[in-house]
Each structure stands twice: as structure tokens, then as C-alpha cells.
């Protein structure tokens, strides 16, 4: 997708070009709002506000090729504003230690069919910082680390190592879960 071209066309009022941007980035924005644990209504609000801010700035995006980063930063601000408004700020970022043992492997057979639901429940049990990072990484289409860094205000170089530790944590939870562990 040629993002600068779509952005320029949208700025001329081209609804189809705008809709292409919406399709490309709504998954990322929704994932960011969910990463901050916003409710359905607040997440919808944060995403809509982000798009409206873009409409307001359609002629003023300095680096159109970095639109995804601009949207990620704007979405973070909207989420934090909603959390502050509710008197609720995200948990401070706890350190994520390595799993005591090497991360156990999981295989596809554990994660098919109804087990997806069990996997989702296990995911929700992760420590907040892990859950937050992985929820953004789970966006469709997959975001670049640069955007993830802006969405969560963390150094881009820290994402790979923390991702690895958090996936290790999750694998350990999967291994300890009865539904997921039971072989079919």
C-alpha cells in the first residue's frame, strides 16, 4: 500500500483512499486501545478520536511515510487521556524476568479448535506489561517495532528481548493449563 499517496488522496477528499487507510490501520489502533485495557466503549472512543485527529491534520502530516507511527503516538495519548479521566493509569512497568527454566515449547496440536478460547484466557492472565506488549504485537496486519515503541512509549531496542521473555511466560502458562495441556 502506498501510504503517502493514499494520504494525499484522502486530503483531497477521496473517500476510497481514506477507507483504505482505515482498513490498514484500524487493527493496530484497536490493539493499542486494548493493550491499555480500555473497555469496548472507551476503546471505540480512543480509536475514533485518533481518526478524527488525523482528519484535522490531513494537510499537516510532516512525514506521510511515518503515518503508522503518528497514529500510534496519537492513539497512546488518547488512551492515556481516557485512563486519566477515569482516575486510572496503567500499571507501572514491572521488570519481566526470564522464566526460571528454558521456555517450554508448545505445538500447534495444543492450540487448535476450542483451545483457542483457553489460550485467550491464559493470555489475559499475563502480567500487565507482557500483556500490553503482546496485545499490540498481535495487531492485524503485524505492526513494525517502530510503531509498537511509539504506541507503548518504550525503546524500540527493548521490544525484541521483552517479546521473547513474555512469549516464554505465556508458553509456561500454556504448559500449566489443563485444557491446553490435555492431548487429543
Amino acid at each position, binding site marked *: 500500500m502506498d501510504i503517502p499517496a493514499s494520504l494525499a488522496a*484522502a486530503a483531497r*477528499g477521496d*473517500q476510497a483512499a*481514506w*477507507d483504505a487507510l*482505515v*482498513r490498514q490501520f*484500524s*487493527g493496530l489502533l*484497536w*490493539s493499542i486501545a*486494548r493493550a491499555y485495557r480500555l473497555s*469496548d466503549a472507551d*476503546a*471505540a*472512543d480512543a*480509536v*475514533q*478520536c485518533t*481518526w*478524527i*485527529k*488525523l*482528519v*484535522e491534520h*490531513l494537510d499537516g502530516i510532516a512525514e506521510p511515510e511515518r503515518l503508522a507511527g503518528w497514529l500510534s503516538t496519537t492513539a497512546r495519548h488518547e488512551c492515556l*487521556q481516557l485512563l*486519566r*479521566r*477515569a*482516575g486510572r493509569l496503567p500499571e507501572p512497568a514491572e521488570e519481566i524476568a526470564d522464566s526460571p527454566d528454558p521456555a517450554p*515449547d*508448545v*505445538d*500447534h496440536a495444543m*492450540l487448535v479448535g476450542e483451545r*483457542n*478460547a483457553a*489460550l*485467550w484466557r491464559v*493470555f489475559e492472565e499475563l502480567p500487565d506489561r507482557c500483556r500490553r506488549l*503482546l*496485545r499490540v*504485537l*498481535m*495487531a*492485524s496486519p*503485524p505492526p513494525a517495532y517502530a510503531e509498537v515503541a511509539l504506541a507503548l512509549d518504550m525503546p524500540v531496542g527493548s521490544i525484541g528481548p521483552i*517479546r*521473547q521473555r513474555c*512469549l516464554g511466560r*505465556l*508458553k509456561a502458562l500454556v504448559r500449566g493449563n489443563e485444557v491446553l495441556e490435555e492431548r487429543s
Partner: protein
Amino acid sequence: MNDDEFLDVLRAAADEFDPVPAGVLRDASAALALRSLDAELAELVEAEALVRGDEPVTLAFESEHVTLNLEITDGVVRGFVTGAEGEAVVETPRSRRAVPITDGWFTVAEVPPGLVRVRVTASDGTVVVTRWARG
């Protein structure tokens, strides 16, 4: 399964259990129509931030032609404008309400929570709209 493959499984689970709601996509698509190319933009120059939801938000906007002060409490938008007369139009992404300006003042009740902006007409006929603000 390596980490990338595991993350792909997680992505599929997110798509299944927490997809982007259709209404969110519709609102995003409709946002383009909220552009006001014809109007002069009143910039936010001062915002009295609040910590809890039950305190009023006070906002000051300025453009070349008008100044506009807004106080937003529990869905009531109360405004004071200089340099404009006639009607004030209080807009949200889904609604717009026009009310008369009396001695500079106007009030609109039952404004849905979320973003709000106000459109007025300056004394020389210039249409002025504020930036979006969160009520």
C-alpha cells in the same frame, strides 16, 4: 513452534476473540466527512485539565476573528464568545445542535461524552470552528 509462529497463533486468537468492531470501522470511515475546509480554525490556547470526571473542563480557543471559552460539565456545554453573533453550533462526531448566542453566552445540554467542537460565525461573516476537544 518458534516465537513468530506462536505470535501468529495469538494473532488469530485476537482476530477471533477481540476483533475491531464493525461500528468502529464505520465511524472511522465517516470521520473524513467531519473535515471543515471552509472554516477558520480556532486553536486551543488554554485548557484547564481535570483529574476526575466530575469536575468541569474549561477550554479557551482563539482565531483571528473570535475568542471562545467553553466549560463542559456532565454533558452541558456552556460557552462565551467574543467577535461572533447569531448562532453557535455545538458538534460531536454524531450530532450537531444550534443555539442562539445571547450577550455572548450560549448553553447546550445533553451533549454526548467524547469529542466536541463549536462552530460560530464571526461578525464579518467568516465561519470559525474550534479544534476538537474532549468533553
